[in-house]
């Protein structure tokens, strides 16, 4: 492991990445799919509305992209902070 301050910086950057990712995770499922559905009913997606589509399909696509983006970003962070395997 690198020195203490570098490890702390790495962890802080990691937590920031996790935080942003979790906001996206929450927004696409609980947000668009459940809580905001009534508000977005005007936006039509093939016989239903945007919230319905996010609940049944859209959120899943976002989840996949989210994991790969997170993995890519973390691999870069590992290198930047010299903690890669």
């Amino acid at each position: 492991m690198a020195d203490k301050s570098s490890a702390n910086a790495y962890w802080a950057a990691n937590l920031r990445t996790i935080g942003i990712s979790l906001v996206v995770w929450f927004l696409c499922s609980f947000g668009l799919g459940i809580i905001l559905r009534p508000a977005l009913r005007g936006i039509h997606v093939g016989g239903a509305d945007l919230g319905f589509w996010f609940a049944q399909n859209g959120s899943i696509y976002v989840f996949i992209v989210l994991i790969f983006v997170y993995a890519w970003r973390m691999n870069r962070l590992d290198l930047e902070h010299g903690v890669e395997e």
Partner: protein
Amino acid sequence: MDQFTLNLIVVGITFALYIGIAIWARAGTTAEFYAAGQGVHPVLNGMATGADWMSAASFISMAGIIALAPAGGYEQSAYLMGWTGGYVLLALLLAPYLRKFGKFTVPEFIGDRFYSGGARLLAVICLIVISVTYVIGQMRGVGVTFSRFLEVSTDTGLYIGAAIVFAYAVLGGMKGITYTQVAQYVVLIIAYTIPAIFISLQLTGAFLPQLGLIGTHTASGVEFLTKLDQVVTELGFRAYTSDSPNMLNMFLFTMSLMIGTAGLPHVIIRFFTVPKVSDARTSAGWALVFIALLYTVAPAVGAMARLNLTTTMWPAAEQGNALDGPAITLAEIDSNPELSWIRTWEKTGLLGMSDLNGDGQIQYFAEPPAVTAANKALAAATAALAAAGPDADRAALLAEVAAATAARDAALAEATIGGVSLAERGWVGNEVTRLDNDMMVLANPEIAALPGWVIALVAAGAVAAALSTAAGLLLAISSAISHDLIKGSINPNISEKGELLAARIAMTFAILVATYLGLNPPGFAAQVVALAFGLAAATIFPALMMGIFSKRINKEGAIAGMLVGLIFTGVYIFLYKGWFFIPGTNMLADIPANYLFGISPLSIGSVGAVLNFAAAFLVSGMTREPPHEVQELVESIRVPRGAGSATGH
């Protein structure tokens, strides 16, 4: 060749394939078994995780629940989001750190991080409760599958299925499991998507069912979902896309499934053994890609099955309104070979049709609750009259029947479908008297009149889904008992042989319990499984997450948290579902009116998780902080560098 023989042949071929692979990829040592993920390409590992993960609940139960949910299919999106969104939490919050920790089981991490044999023991208990509940759901799925394709009752199907699971997991399940699961994934995904593509093409002309769902219904020229909503609401059902009647409950249910996913021991275990920390992150992504192939198709399968079922019962609904034409006739059901599935499914007991008004047709509609109650009262009065002895007061009983008949007639005159009262239509009740969610996916290709080999393929896929998960769970249970409980606490000096024997005895016992409870399951396969997720959400996930993200949570806090989560969630579930799921021991009726704030037992895991976190922080704040070396351990799992390969104790 008849369907029965075809089913046997296709299921037989897939079994031969699994056995062949198991022999070819046989693991020579126990270490090889434990480290099955190492040296396996992340993509293949993702497929294997997918097969392990997608059980009978995902395969046969979920789309049926979405299709037939009384409150509409939208509310059941909780399953779709919950069982996929959990992988985000796994990838971000648990997998890389647990991989860095480098041991084999979840209780091992909890025992080391919270420097306590007690915490490890408690984790073992949580793990067993979660896994056994999960296996009950699988057994229910196994029973349904075998009953259909062997054309026997659900109970007989369950016994046969249990015997196969026993042979599969206890005798040979530990060898070559990853490659077998890859094959099982391929079988189950083909079996799931091929009929979906066929049906999507038939109904909407779209090749991809995901696009068919939001496409246009070819026969009527209306958008597919609009058409579905229109047909089901015409018959008195709630629209497929209608809002959830209880948004709070839907929110909590989704959350419970998500964090439960991230707390399921047999899923987490797969990320312990990937070669590198960075692989743990991408492995979760690949697993989700393969899971999403099924999950994004599932709502289309459910919605399209619902439309096909309805247009089968009401042929006029195909082009226009259901009630423009007559309902399907009994003569047609008995003579049309494309409808033979109705009679075969009736044999399983999962489908029931009865010509209540004797008009030679089967009217399928949403029976208003008042009519149901009046029909029940009438049936009770008639039964009382029939059972009356010679010296009973027949006049009073006859008067009761007359009163009940009058009340029923009044209810029929009051209730309307399509603006016309049931009395005027000459209907006395919904004549599809039983329609089980768990038959929808298996019956789907038959309802759509697809070729016989597709139907056989679906049977094989369902068997693959149920077997791969049941085996994975039984392995998790047996390793918890033999490795964590017996070797870890009771008798550390146990021999390899003794450990293996204990594992097998534990597995056998687990199958027996699950079979017994599977005979009278506390819900549909997916619902039983959802209960297991609630328990995982309230116990394992918070303990793991706090163990990684907080250095301050100590032994006392973690134990208090897990206890509070387990007891609160378990008791809430048992109150409605029966103590330890034994039928008839529930203290409150399992209906929304009885729920605390409308939160169903399926959703309560989220609340349990919050209580777990709260208890852990509170108790840790009042007790001493963890020793220095434990804080160092937390520091070290937070950085990838220095991760060796996983080791046992």
